[in-house]
């Protein structure tokens, strides 16, 4: 089965603290994973993709095939990071589609 699981509905941290948003996936093929973000009153948008191994807004995510995980990390959280974060798996069914996790709300307190 193709599935993305984000175990935490809400993650609350203080400004400057490290952040890790968890994502686990189930997929028989070679996984392509992404993080999408939705800031307050804004639309859902792509944050980063595992292929590029880039850091966007200080966030990184490493694909761990052994643990079937793609956790999103940032060493020092900022208040502007407060948002809803969705992990997504891209699968090649009917051309291609995204399977989203349920999302984790990150709240960064001053």
């Amino acid at each position: 089965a193709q599935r993305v699981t984000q175990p935490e509905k809400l993650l609350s941290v203080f400004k400057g603290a490290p952040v890790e948003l968890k994502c686990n996936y189930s997929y028989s093929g070679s996984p392509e994973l992404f993080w999408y973000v939705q800031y307050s009153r804004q639309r859902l948008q792509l944050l980063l993709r595992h292929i590029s191994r880039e850091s966007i807004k200080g966030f990184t995510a490493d694909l761990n095939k052994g643990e079937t995980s793609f956790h999103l990390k940032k060493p020092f959280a900022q208040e502007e990071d407060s948002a809803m974060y969705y992990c997504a798996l891209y699968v090649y069914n009917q051309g291609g589609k995204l399977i989203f996790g349920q999302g984790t709300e990150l709240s960064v307190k001053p």
Partner: protein
Amino acid sequence: DAMVIQNPRYQVTQFGKPVTLSCSQTLNHNVMYWYQQKSSQAPKLLFHYYDKDFNNEADTPDNFQSRRPNTSFCFLDIRSPGLGDAAMYLCATSEGHSYEQYFGPGTRLTVT
């Protein structure tokens, strides 16, 4: 700014009364998607259009249909809304099948 627009942002309909949600885009993307997102749940793909080719997800109820009259517009029709169809409906676009999808702000549907 090129973007994805959804109208209306909030829609209230009565149980069993047909409703249409609309999406338009100025990105000139050839793929348009409709997702349903219920409270505290993941966005779930209902169907998508690749150009004029319609692709329905296997578990999308027959009650949900879609039309794409041209590249820019796509409509979601709910023939007989039930209380369980209350949700946020998201439209998205991409250039070809892609993980990089551009989302609209969504339409929140309430069924009374």
